[in-house]
Each structure stands twice: as C-alpha cells, then as structure tokens.
C-alpha cells in the first residue's frame, strides 16, 4: 500500500465527533420551524398558483373596464365637441324696453339722490348654425332694477 493510500485509509477510520446533546436538542426543536415553513411554503405555493393570477386578471379586467369607459367618454366628448362646432351662434340681437316702473328714491352716501327703476326688456335674438341651416328666433324677457341719478336744478 503506497503512502497516500495509507493516509486515506487512516482518514477513513477517523470519524467525525458526535453532535453535542444541546445541539441535537436545538435541532430537534428546529424541526417545527422547518415544518411550519413547509406549511407556509404550501400557502405560498397556493398563493402564487391561484390567488396572484386571479388578482392580476382582476386588475387587468378592472383596468380595461376603466380604460374603455374613459375612451367612451372621450369619444362622447368628440361628439359634443362636434356639437359645439355646429352650435347655433347669434347672428342678430335686439333689445326692446317694455316697461319702466319707478320703485322709489334713495339718497346715496354722497348725498346725491337716485331714482330706483324696475325695467323690463324684451330680448330678440336670431341664431343660426355656422354650417348654415334655418334661423332660429328667440324672445326672452329680462327684468332689472337699476338706479337712475336724479338731476336737480
């Protein structure tokens, strides 16, 4: 037997020292740690296999829904923008004084007298779309209360 083989044979006879009892006790307790982690790992596996894909799909679905909703609103906006483009614009406007009724007289802090008048206007307006088309006549009344300065001679 040559020298290295003799050494190898001798090494084989050398056995590692046994684990000290306190380390064996620690490792025996550590089994629970391994077992609990295995349960955790099983949950993690289920989480990765089922919950996360479902959650991801749900997120995608919700995202898609909102994206579609926003696009629909945007396209609605385009239609209304189109409507704005063709919105009737006033082409003729005329106001008529219908009534003017004195309400009273008051003296302002600057000692100048003012007559308070209630006036009613009739507003005539002609509108037409800029793309042409028929004219539309509208008539609305408007009431104002206005101060009219009195001139004293």
């Amino acid at each position: 037997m040559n020298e290295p083989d003799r050494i190898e044979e001798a090494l084989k006879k050398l056995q590692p020292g046994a684990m000290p009892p306190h380390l064996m006790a620690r490792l025996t307790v550590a089994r629970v740690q391994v077992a609990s982690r295995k349960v955790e790992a099983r949950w993690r596996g289920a989480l990765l296999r089922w919950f996360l894909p479902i959650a991801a799909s749900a997120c995608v679905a919700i995202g898609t829904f909102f994206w579609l909703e926003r696009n629909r609103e945007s396209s609605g906006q385009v239609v209304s923008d189109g409507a704005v483009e063709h919105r009737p614009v006033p082409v003729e406007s005329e106001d008529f004084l219908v009534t003017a009724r004195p309400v009273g007289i008051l003296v302002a802090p600057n000692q100048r007298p003012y007559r308070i008048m209630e006036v009613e206007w009739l507003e005539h307006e002609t509108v037409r779309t800029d793309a042409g088309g028929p004219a539309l006549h509208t008539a609305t009344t408007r009431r104002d209360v206005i101060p009219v300065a009195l001139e004293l001679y």
Partner: protein
Amino acid sequence: MQNELSPDAWRDWLRQNGARFLLYSRHQTRTESDAEDIVQEAIVESWQRAGGIPSDALVFSTIRRRAIDLARSGDRRVARERAEGEPEQEWFAPDIEDRETQRILADAVKSLQPNYREVVTLKGWGGLTFQKIAEITGVPLNTAASRYRYALEELRQNLKGVAL
C-alpha cells in the same frame, strides 16, 4: 415517504448526517458556537429550500455560504474573544483502541491549510465527488482534485514516522 418530516425521520436524519455537517461547519468557522449556529441555520434552510430531505451537497454549500457571510459580517475580534472563552471541542470521535494516533491524525487534518482541509473534509466525510466539491467551492474540477492530492501529500509529510 422519503421527504416526510415526522419527528422520527428528522431525528434519524440528524443522527445519520449531523456530525458530518458539524465537522465541516467547524472547519469553516472560528468558534464552536459559530459552528453550531451555522450548522443549525444551514440545515433548516436546506430543508426549507429542498422542501424535504436535502442533498448533502446542498447542506454543505449552505454551510459554506453562511460561514462566509458570518466571516464577512461578523466582528472577527468578538469571534476571537468568544473562541478564547470556549472549551476546545474534539472534531473527531476518539478511538478507544488507538487514541494517540487518532489525535495526531486529527491534529494533522486540522493543521492543513483551509483550502486543502475543506476538500479533504468534503471528500472524506462528506462523501462528495470532486465534481460536487468543485461546484461547492467554486473552483475547477481539476483544482479540487489537485487540492485533495496535495492535502494527502501534506499529511504524508506531516505524519512521517507515525504508525498509522
């Protein structure tokens, strides 16, 4: 059945393999308490990673990685101080028939330079192939084999005149 984690299976596996892992952990660390901590952490981690009984190579490589992490992060001065306060542990089981020769041989193994000692440990008591040893230690296959050969040569030189 192999991967079941019953208390008996766990204890049997520890009895069968724990000493080899502790020996390697002792080679990789400076103190007995570090070796025990590392071996416990590595065994738990290996079981968790393997999802059952881990391969020897996985446990050895985990011990190695954790020992390196400890050496990098730990305060070496503190480790030395702890080592001074700890009783010296026998790395190898005493042989009743030839206690003195065994002690000389054990001392010779302990005095090998760390690279050689690591390969001898993984080969002799870890039962790993040079291929696995090369993977664990991160060296080429030929280097692992050479280190083993040099280690035996160094032992032969140091044990000249000792009747083995």
